């Protein structure tokens, strides 16, 4: 298990390759990557991600540990950035390795659902219309009831 919180960009391809390699007993690897998406108006200058430094690492480790306990997994990776990013930049990734695909998929979805609503990150959009704190969605909170 590795959990990394950092401001710098990460190399998604390299991380995915390293994670998926060297396991001889895991048949399935799932990755999820979150990317800064431009606004419908096409004028997002930047996405700024604030976090709670003392809490973030612990909160992510707790979520990753729970995934390892609930599913039959060989490994879990979480990388999440903070700071200022432009459209197309990768914000974060999770990866799961499991003997079977159902565990790898479910654990990755669980990680994402919890990361969305239980990890202390807040997104602020900087665009042509000024700035805007991204509101949490009811559907993201509702997604947690699945687990």
């Amino acid at each position, binding site marked *: 298990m590795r959990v990394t919180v950092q401001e710098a960009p990460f190399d998604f391809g390299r991380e995915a390759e390293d994670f998926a390699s060297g396991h001889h007993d895991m048949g399935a690897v799932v990755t999820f990557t979150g990317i800064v998406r431009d606004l419908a108006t096409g004028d997002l200058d930047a996405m700024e991600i*604030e976090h*709670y430094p003392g809490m973030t690492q612990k909160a992510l480790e707790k979520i990753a540990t729970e995934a390892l306990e609930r599913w039959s997994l060989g490994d879990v990776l979480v990388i999440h950035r903070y700071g200022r990013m432009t459209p197309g930049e990768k914000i974060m990734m999770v990866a799961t390795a499991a003997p079977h695909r159902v565990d790898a998929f479910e654990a990755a979805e669980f990680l994402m659902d919890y990361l969305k609503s239980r990890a202390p990150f807040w997104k602020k959009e900087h665009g042509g219309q000024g700035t805007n*704190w991204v*509101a*949490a969605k009811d559907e993201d909170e509702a997604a947690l009831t699945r687990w």
Partner: protein
Amino acid sequence: MDVLYFAWVRERIGVPKERVETSAKTVADLVEELKSREERYEVAFSDLSALRVAVDQDLTDFDASIEGAREVAFFPPMTGG
């Protein structure tokens, strides 16, 4: 104890962190105490359903005890991922 604010809560309160001397026993008591101090707190805490709280860096709710706590943080619902 240290009281921390994040995102728009931080912007409304005007500081990211402050030292608060209080005898409040729960998060809700602390909120009431802060609201009675200045209008910016009253504005920031006007709708608690729009807020989340962590005590000593663990998510909890407004009924939680803060006795002996070192750090209480207020923020909007999180938007990670």
